[in-house]
């Protein structure tokens, strides 16, 4: 049990798998945007080179509690995302951690909270504006995200990830998966919902004051967010039976397809203002999500 848990955390789908996969997905993101703009785009190893280079930068030493906190936030983000990866039921064999979807939600939300805190701690004006925007956007998209999770849980009668991670004929399941998918661009700060890291307006938002290794950790956290969020949607869609190697492969392939779709949408759209982003989630997506939850509850108890 412990051994299987460690394998999930460190080997697959945790550390050893998730970090290269995160770099690969970040490359896919940039490549898709480049192809949409009729460019050739970066080479395959570009995110890896960026990471090594940033690790090797010599940053000026800072003192005080703020400096420690600024170093802590990206580390907490990366660790909690690795925990989220370990929870994902990717392989149909032994289940390492039998967590539930509420714990997964909490772990997936940690990077966003750290991002907001980093913006306020850095003391930069751009960081504070970015942090406020990220906080407001988080309130907007988490309503839909939570309702989607509740819809999934009510239709299947459980919060356990291992039981949820199978396709079902129930329409509530698919509406729930769609709700989670709709929240991914906001959680990843992709283009229609990229107000919190809008480089043309507020430079890098909360990351403006970062440099060197801490910035490398933030870039890594972004890659891991890609893997965890698209992986969550993939595990909810793909069947759990079959050959032991087939499901991880299919999860990876389907996640990459999602990366391509979301990056293409990001390249094709302009940035929404904060108000329009909130209106998208609270007016359209939330109405659908409330309808889904109420119909799922109705179908379950009548």
């Amino acid at each position: 049990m412990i051994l299987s848990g460690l394998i999930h955390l460190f080997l697959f789908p945790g550390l050893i798998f998730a970090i290269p996969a995160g770099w690969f997905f970040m490359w896919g993101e940039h490549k898709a945007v480049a192809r949409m703009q009729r460019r050739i785009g970066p080479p395959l190893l570009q995110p890896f080179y960026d990471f090594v280079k940033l690790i090797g930068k010599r940053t000026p030493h800072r003192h005080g509690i703020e400096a420690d906190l600024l170093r802590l936030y990206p580390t907490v983000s990366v660790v909690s995302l690795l925990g989220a990866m370990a929870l994902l039921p990717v392989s149909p064999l032994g289940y390492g951690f039998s967590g539930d979807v509420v714990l997964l939600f909490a772990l997936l939300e940690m990077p966003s909270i750290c991002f907001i805190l980093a913006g306020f701690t850095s003391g930069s004006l751009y960081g504070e504006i970015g942090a406020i925007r990220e906080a407001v956007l988080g309130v907007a998209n988490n309503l839909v995200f939570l309702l989607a999770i509740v819809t999934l849980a009510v239709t299947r009668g459980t919060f356990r990830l291992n039981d949820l991670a199978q396709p079902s004929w129930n329409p509530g399941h698919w509406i729930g998966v769609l709700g989670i998918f709709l929240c991914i661009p906001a959680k990843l700060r992709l283009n229609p919902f990229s107000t919190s890291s809008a480089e043309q307006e507020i430079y890098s938002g909360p990351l403006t004051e970062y440099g060197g290794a801490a910035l490398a950790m933030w870039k890594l956290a972004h890659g891991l967010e890609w893997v965890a969020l698209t992986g969550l949607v993939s595990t909810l869609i793909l069947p759990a039976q079959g050959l032991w190697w087939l499901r991880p492969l299919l999860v990876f392939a389907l996640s990459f397809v999602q990366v391509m779709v979301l990056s293409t949408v990001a390249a094709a759209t302009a940035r929404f203002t904060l108000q329009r982003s909130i209106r998208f989630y609270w007016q359209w997506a939330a109405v659908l999500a409330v309808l889904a939850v109420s119909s799922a509850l109705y179908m379950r108890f009548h």
Partner: protein
Amino acid sequence: MKFLQRLLHKSRRKSPWIFHLNTGSCNGCDIELVTCLSPRFDVEQIGIHLEGSPRHADILCVTGPVTRNTLEAIKTVYAQVCEPKAVVACGSCPASCNVFAGSPVIEGPLSKHIPVDVYVPGCPPHPDAIIAGIAQAAQILADRGIPKTAKGEEQS
């Protein structure tokens, strides 16, 4: 250790992130520098990325003849770029003050205030020349990043 050094050297060469600093330029060089990012030239192929914050950048691309107003900003921004770093002077203005030479409000040339690694001549320079200059600066920066003893070992 030698493998890690070589990996770091290659990574620095492959991923030069630039920060664009205008020190009173007429915008000619700025337009040419931004053209490098367009689909026609596509600098992302060699890893060049325009950053909004000097703390993220490796290479400082300076345009303009260093006016008195921008002098403090140049020194601040240069100090904010983390080591190892390099400076590319885009166009004739930072190199020689160009037609503004002798003006009472010009404090140039740039090399009086910060060390310049690569000069890209032209008024304005062609985007190809700017990309070549940045690539050369990335090589200089990668070589500079290695401590002197390790570099001597590699050469011997």
